């Protein structure tokens, strides 16, 4: 299948220049935290020798005077979502590969765009010129990616129809989407270009690298059978707010979340539906980012039940620091599950009772009603014979 790859190089840096134009021309490194490690997310184009996911210390050893910015991932994702939405106006098959990288399927678009140039023009119009988009068109995702990566600067696009082998043979092995240690291994074997890899038979590569060896050979030959996974459009509701003052108090965070949930549940589009899954994020002072997802076994139909689950989550996973912004993204909406009630009133009364007990538990956060269970009824020690177990385990 013919695929168009859109690359937005240094996407995060370009997002930062939208809000802070003064950083243009200054060497800048955008950093993010993963666990206790600080890594480079992006950097200004004039800093040669840096790579994404490089340890920050290594980057600072090269460019000690560079400005450091903490990554604002929700902002970058929101901007990229807008761009993807604009691309979906051109083609329904858009895959979000990574931040700043997307693939577009061209199947069935011949009636709308009679030739490749009109398609490229339409796609480039969907992406703001500020991001300096590059496009590559080829058979398969990997060749399309390489075509975009090595597009000529004067045109910012490359169309690969014939001559794929000639185009690939001089490219370095480092462009392959494989583990870093395997790339180092290829260089140690003296295999530096895709042409050298393509000339090998599959046996030695598979023997050395396992299943990835076959993938390496196929990609070096420009053969990529990976299917396109288009975005699944589902209704999302997003609400966020900036706190009036930076806080570490759980109560203050919960009050803010309750306010966000009130806004969510008051929306006309949610009427009659509940929340099946939500994503909560916070951005702290010093741009420390925290996020978690919650799934509900049954759709949460009111604020109280949703808030009690969020409270448990916030207690189990404390914030890394003071919180400045909070956001909610509701990704799953569903109707209440239908239940067939019993004809007999005694059984219905039992159902009502169990439901009330469950609601009490959700409200107070711990089991409130217990039942007596036999543990060691034969024991001579009386307190070992029975125990209280929650009615709804």
């Amino acid at each position, binding site marked *: 299948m013919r695929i168009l790859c859109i690359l937005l190089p240094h996407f995060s840096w370009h997002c930062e220049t939208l809000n802070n134009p003064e950083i243009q021309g200054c060497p800048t490194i955008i950093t993010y935290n993963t666990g206790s490690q600080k890594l480079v997310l992006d950097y200004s184009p004039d800093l040669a020798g840096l790579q994404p996911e490089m340890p920050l210390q290594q980057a600072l050893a090269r460019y000690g005077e560079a400005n450091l910015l903490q990554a604002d991932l929700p902002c970058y994702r929101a901007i990229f979502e807008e761009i993807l939405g604009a691309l979906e106006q051109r083609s329904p098959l858009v895959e979000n590969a990574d931040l700043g990288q997307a693939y577009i399927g061209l199947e069935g678009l011949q009636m709308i765009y009679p030739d490749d140039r009109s398609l490229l023009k339409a796609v480039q119009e969907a992406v703001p010129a500020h991001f300096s988009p590059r496009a590559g068109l080829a058979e398969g995702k990997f060749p399309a990616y390489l075509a975009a990566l090595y597009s000529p600067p004067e045109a910012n696009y490359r169309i690969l129809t014939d001559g794929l082998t000639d185009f690939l043979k001089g490219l370095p092995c480092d462009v392959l989407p494989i583990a870093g240690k395997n790339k180092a291994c290829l260089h140690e074997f003296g295999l530096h270009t895709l042409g050298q890899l393509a000339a090998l038979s599959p046996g030695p590569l598979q023997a050395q690298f396992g299943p990835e060896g076959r993938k390496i050979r196929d990609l070096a030959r420009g053969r990529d059978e990976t299917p396109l996974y288009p975005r699944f459009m589902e209704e999302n509701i997003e609400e966020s707010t900036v706190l009036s003052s930076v806080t570490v108090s759980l109560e203050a965070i919960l009050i803010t979340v309750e306010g966000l949930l009130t806004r969510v549940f008051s929306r006309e589009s949610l009427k009659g539906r509940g929340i099946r899954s939500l994503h909560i994020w916070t951005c702290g002072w010093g741009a420390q980012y925290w996020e978690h997802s919650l799934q509900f076994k049954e759709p949460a139909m009111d604020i109280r039940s949703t808030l009690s689950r969020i409270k448990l989550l916030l207690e189990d996973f404390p914030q890394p620091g003071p919180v400045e912004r909070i956001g909610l993204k509701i990704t799953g909406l569903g109707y209440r599950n239908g239940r067939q009630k019993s004809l007999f009133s005694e059984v219905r009364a039992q159902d009502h009772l169990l439901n009330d007990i469950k609601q009490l538990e959700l409200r107070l956060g711990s*089991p409130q009603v*217990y*039942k*007596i*269970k*036999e*543990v060691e009824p034969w024991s*001579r*020690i*009386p*307190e070992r*014979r*029975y*125990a*209280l*177990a*929650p009615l709804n*385990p």
Partner: protein
Amino acid sequence: MVQNSGKTLCPGTLKPVNLPELIKAEEDASGLPTAILTPRRQVIKTIEDRWRIDDEWWRREPVSRLYCAVLFASGQRLVVYKDLTDGEWYKQGY
């Protein structure tokens, strides 16, 4: 009593039942109770039964108790025991 559904019990959520309660008691020379002082002094009319249990001797805190089923003058019955490891009196349903 709820019938055993066969579900796996989660030990963390279980609570004990029928735990012993500490009481004060007067005892005679042989170590048997003559009066219970908690919540107020009640003289024991007769000791209807007594038995001893010694269990879990391998633990750091073995179980060694002398149980007495007592009858008060008011007609009330109670089961009390003396913990032979610490010498305290407790009341517990048996």
